[in-house]
């Protein structure tokens, strides 16, 4: 009898706990227990933090959406998977997330190679993936604009930013005539350099490109690359290694006295939070002498809007970190998804894509506008010089120059860019 009683009480307890959950499900107007969002990024290897930031951005977005009542009453559920920066793993994860776990949407992806591999698979899986970091232009130019894979939507700026913005900033610097390149020895590095040269040449036929050194993925020592290009006495350096590689490249350039000998050093993704943290001490001491320039797909000190400030505050409270751009783009991707699903009142790919047409949405990173031809959410981004700001414990980009999306995005019809060194 006593045993029965305890069993009964457990049942009662369970009922009490579970009851509130039942109406929530019943409220979901899309007829699913929850909206499942698969999240992917590189969480192992030297770029592991980018994947982690993707995960943090997605998690926080889902928490906030759910706290505000979900999407059409449906809870959002996320599940993160490490793609190891490998195409095979990314594809396998996508399949697992969609066909096994039942993801309605997927989001994330750091590596261009993984992104290109996932594209066709998404078409087969019939699920939209919001790309929030992978930078290859081919993802949207080839797979979307040319091959019409509708399942690809890009929320982060592609490589246009790394190359074209640099050309736009420095075209007016008449004192810089000799450019040299320290490039990432893979497609990203080649395209950035080629696109930069192409764009700059249009404005400045007089500039010379005097040297190049290529560093493969996972280069630990850039001293030979630095000294090789410095042997050509360039006025400015164009550098594309990113994340930790960018920090050690700058550190190694400093001790070779590079900043005494050049006018400008463009570190494409130098505005990434991890890079800014890494060079914090040098920025404080002004060791780059105001010659270091950088951008990022999103930077925490721009735009100066209440939305952005509040986002940073919440993010820091939740994770005790500053959001990197992959966090902001992923966070925003979930809100874009929310807006699209609410408009479509459906989870079907075609309807959701339709709902995105003409969409303009305010995110922490500013206004994003959907461009149908290549399914990108295009937005303005700033570039500037890393400086300290009393309001932040880590450097920010100062001396900001903001570029309009229409100026630095390439437009359809796309002309091919050389993808070799």
């Amino acid at each position, binding site marked *: 009898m006593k045993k029965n009683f305890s069993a009964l009480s457990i049942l009662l307890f369970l009922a009490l706990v579970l009851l509130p959950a039942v109406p929530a499900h019943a409220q979901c107007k899309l007829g699913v227990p929850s909206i499942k969002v698969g999240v992917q990024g590189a969480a192992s290897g030297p770029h592991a933090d980018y994947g982690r930031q993707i995960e943090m951005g997605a998690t926080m977005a889902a928490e906030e959406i759910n706290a505000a009542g979900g999407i059409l009453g449906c809870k959002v559920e996320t599940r993160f*998977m490490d793609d190891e920066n490998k195409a095979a793993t990314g594809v396998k994860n996508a399949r697992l997330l969609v066909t096994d776990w039942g993801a309605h949407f997927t989001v994330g992806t750091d590596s261009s*190679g993984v992104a290109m591999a996932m594209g066709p698979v998404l078409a087969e899986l019939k699920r939209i993936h919001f790309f929030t970091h992978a930078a290859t232009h081919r993802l949207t130019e080839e797979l979307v604009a040319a091959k019409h894979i509708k399942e690809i939507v890009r929320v982060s700026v592609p490589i246009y930013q790394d190359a074209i913005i640099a050309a736009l900033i420095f075209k007016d610097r008449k004192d810089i005539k000799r450019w040299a390149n320290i490039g990432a020895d893979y497609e990203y590095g080649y395209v950035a350099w080629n696109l930069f040269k192409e764009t700059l040449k249009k404005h400045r036929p007089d500039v010379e490109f005097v040297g190049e050194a290529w560093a493969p993925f996972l280069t630990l020592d850039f001293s030979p690359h630095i000294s090789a290009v410095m042997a050509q006495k360039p006025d400015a350096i164009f550098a594309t290694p990113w994340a930790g590689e960018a920090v050690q490249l700058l550190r190694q350039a400093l001790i070779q006295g590079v900043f005494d000998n050049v006018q400008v050093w463009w570190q494409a993704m130098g505005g990434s939070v991890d890079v800014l943290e890494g060079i914090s001490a040098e920025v404080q001491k002004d060791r780059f002498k105001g010659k270091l320039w950088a951008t990022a797909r999103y930077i925490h000190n721009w735009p100066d809007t209440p939305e952005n400030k509040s986002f940073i505050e919440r993010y820091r409270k939740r994770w005790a970190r500053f959001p990197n751009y992959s966090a902001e783009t992923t966070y925003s991707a979930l809100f874009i998804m929310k807006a699209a699903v609410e408009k479509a009142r459906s989870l079907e790919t075609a309807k959701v894509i339709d709902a995105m047409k003409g969409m303009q949405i305010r995110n922490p990173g500013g206004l994003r506008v959907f461009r149908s031809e290549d399914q990108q959410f295009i937005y303005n981004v700033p570039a500037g010089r890393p400086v300290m700001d009393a309001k932040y414990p880590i450097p920010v980009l100062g001396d900001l120059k903001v570029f309009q999306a229409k100026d630095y995005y390439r437009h359809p019809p796309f002309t091919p860019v050389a*993808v*070799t060194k």
Partner: protein
Amino acid sequence: MSPAPDRLSPQITTLIVLLVVALFLLPWVAGRYPVYLAMQILILAVFSLGFNLLLGYTGLLSFGQAGFFAVGAYACAKILLAVPNLILGIAGGVACAGVAALLLGILSVRHTRIYFAMLTLAFGMMIYSIAWKWRDFTGGDDGLVGIPRAPLEIPGIVSVSVAAMDRYYYVVLVLSLLAILAMYRLIRSPLGLTLQAIRESDTRAEFAGVPVRKYRLIAFTVAGLYAGLAGALLPPLENTVTPPIAHWSTSAEPVLATLLGGVHSFAGPIVGAFLFFVIKDVIVRFTEYWLIWFGIIVVALVIGFPGGVMSIFARRHRRVVQHPDDADHMHKVQ
């Protein structure tokens, strides 16, 4: 390794038949993901089986099998992109990998043991560098994309679409089973015996009239063919081929699978391939730190069951092959 290949016991035969039937029924009873996972397992099983012909049966540890896997995959992909015919693609992939293995094998089999391992590592990484750098042909670091799951076609006679995942599954299943069967045959044939004799003692085999180097080359080529088949099955499945499949960390996969399952058992590589994916898949569901658990399992297996998982089930306890010539210390600190 059973000294005299025994006939399969009725229990084992029943088990195998049930397993094969289950594999054929899989698409009807399981969701899309298990079917996909089954394909990955079958591909790794074929890959590992070829690898184990070298390690388990011939006594050569190759650390460059991913190179031939990649040759198979890239060749198949290039063919499918040009001519959408799956038979041609897979056959072409296997053939190219076989030729590559034959050519590099002629050089590789001049060595054994650690030198062989290092040489195959170098060759594998050369293929990796080519896949990475020869952008015009291989698509560079982004690889080849948009590879079609082309129909099985004999022009003018028959054309069967396998574009649906479930259908392609049967292509993978049937080819893998045939490959397994062929390997089973090979192991129990005179060639299989000769290779095992070389593993046991190459000097003895040579003095028994066996042209050892030639047979090592044969084993190397067959392993390359198997790697090529495994590789060729991949692009139609994933629609993509990228350079990491040629990297040494991919070469480590059949090594891991084989040693997990057991070098000294025919089924070892197959069981190991299954374990490799299932362990990873299970761990990944619970923790993002899956590598550490995988590593712990590997270490525990090596220390606890150096004969692989299959040795736990082996009826007789079999000693791991010892190299009596372990003491040939060509390596000295100088």
